[in-house]
């Protein structure tokens, strides 16, 4: 019994110290990377193996006092990568190419199905579900961020369900 408690305590201490180290190294990293613009939940929608175009989505937070613009995205293995926005104009869904994506000061831009998205065109090979894809994002303040993007399923309702 006492032994068990010791074991649990040990695991707890180990866990806390690992978490603390992680947090510290994170903070350390962030001093070198641009922490003014943060990317969360980046994902590529898993698609048929012959899909001519893929959608890339994420949250981009701008923690600065001025507007920041995403000007391009890069990853290997595509003919073209474009910034797009789907606009619903009286029931007609229009895919409109954008020169940049504006993220207002102290605000978040949510790239999601039916809205802002990055379009990956003519893939050499469509990545499969569960794969991680490295993508770099270029902003107008001169900064670049490289993120790991998960390939996963997702319709409009997926996010809706996960919120419950």
């Amino acid at each position, binding site marked *: 019994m006492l032994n068990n408690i010791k074991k649990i305590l040990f695991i707890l201490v180990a866990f806390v110290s690992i978490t603390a180290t992680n947090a510290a190294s994170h903070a350390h990293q962030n001093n070198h990377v641009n922490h003014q613009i943060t990317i969360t939940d980046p994902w590529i929608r898993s698609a048929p193996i012959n899909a001519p175009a893929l*959608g890339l989505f994420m949250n981009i937070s701008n923690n600065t006092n001025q507007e920041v613009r995403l000007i391009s995205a890069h990853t290997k293995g595509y003919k073209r990568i474009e910034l797009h926005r789907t606009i619903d104009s009286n029931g007609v869904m229009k*895919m409109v190419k954008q020169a940049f994506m504006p993220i207002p000061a102290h605000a978040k831009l949510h790239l999601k199905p039916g809205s802002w998205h990055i379009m990956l065109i003519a893939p050499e090979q469509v990545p499969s579900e569960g794969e991680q894809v490295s993508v770099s994002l270029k902003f107008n303040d001169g900064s670049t961020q490289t993120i790991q993007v998960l390939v996963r399923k997702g319709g409009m309702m*997926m996010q809706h369900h996960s919120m419950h």
Partner: protein
Amino acid sequence: MRAKFFMVAGAAILLIAAVLYSLSGSKDYRSLNAKLTAAQIMHNPQRPLSTFSLSDHNGDVFNNNSLMGDWSLVLFIYTHCPDVCPTELANMAMLKAQLKNKHAAIIPKVVAITFDPLRDTPKVLKTYVAHFDKAFIGVSGDTQQIDQLVKDLGAYYERVVYDEAGKPITLKKHEPLPDDAIEKGYVINHTARVYLMSPDGQVLAGFPTPHKVDDMANDIELLIKAFEE
């Protein structure tokens, strides 16, 4: 004498009722509108679907008969669509799952007709739609035939090419694609309604965007019940 009169009168009333019933195209589904949260009634016996003949993703004929006998959900897609069409197809797969969860007696089959038969051949559609659900049916074929269906169902699409400077140019309805369009790519602006077709091969209701799967499943059950009553 009196009994005979009542019998004749009764028969006449039944006959008139039957004629009225068939003339009015059976029921007035508009009374359902108050209960529906996602669907809009499109039932209109005065305007049946045109005769059409297309090809399913196995290369077999897909025509008016293919929509008869079963309930179906029909939608228009194109595989070069980066956003709206894959979302719709994913939603249709979730809708089927939702109906299954609710133990629905009838789960409509899903038919995805391409706006873009030039690039979306039956073979392309077969690989594409099966990704979302093995049972989905992809349909391609002659542009004029597809355009007729698009018109009948009140859908709409327009093709957009880009000029040298990258400026978008929307093509007119029957304007041919520029020679380099296949190479350079083009997108299609389009409506994204889903149509519920009853087993008589006619449209009963339409679901405009956004497609909320839970609401759609409820409405589909209500509509099927009303039709079969």
